[in-house]
């Protein structure tokens, strides 16, 4: 019985080609599956800020995250 697909025979050009990095916007079906659930309204709001404002927002947000984690840890140990 013959194989349905003959194995790929690498050509000399294939072997020497440096494919480098794919462009940032290269299509990937797996990444696309995640992308469709992204809330773009948040992204647009963040894009209106300066990097300094984004850094301040992030620091403040992470403080809240840690406060919540501490409260949760205290409750668990009660």
């Amino acid at each position, binding site marked *: 019985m013959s194989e349905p697909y003959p194995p790929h025979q690498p050509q000399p050009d294939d072997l020497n080609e440096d494919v480098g990095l794919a462009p940032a916007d290269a299509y990937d079906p797996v990444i696309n599956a995640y992308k469709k659930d992204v809330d773009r309204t*948040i992204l647009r709001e963040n*894009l209106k800020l300066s*990097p300094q404002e984004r850094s301040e927002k992030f*620091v403040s947000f992470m403080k809240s*995250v840690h406060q919540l984690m501490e409260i949760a840890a205290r409750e668990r140990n009660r």
Partner: protein
Amino acid sequence: MPTQTDYAKAVQVLHAGGVEFIIVGGVAAILHGLGYTTYDLDVVYSRSRDNILRLVETLSGYQPYLRGAPAGLPFRFDARTVRNGLNFTLSTSFGDLDLLGEVAGVGGYRELLPHSKEVEAFGVRCRRANLDRLIQMKRAAGRPKDLEVLGQLQALLEERRKFPDISPQDPK
């Protein structure tokens, strides 16, 4: 519970010490506009002799230690250690800091420098990797945990292209 990293302090300390570094990873993504949580600061540092000396001297007052390693190891964060190693995941008195001499698919500081930009963030002028390179780095790392972030980063890239004037304070 993850360590509470003082990101502003970390960036300000490196900046004040004259260390050549580029912010990458989650914090760089946040500086581009991603809404995201991360618990450490990732930076690509220059492997030049002078910069390694500056890096070691700058961090010496902040108890750098191998993150997650048992206490009491004869670890010394000195120029020899940095020269002999490449990437270090450290805990410090200001939180978790990842020092990267090289990043998969991108290379080191010299290669990343043309693909980075100086911005005002955390109260100082510092370098941040460009969005395109961040996406390429994440993809090159090939970690399943990055897939969700990759989706968000690509969406961010699309939004920037769709609304080119949306970030007057952070032009591309």
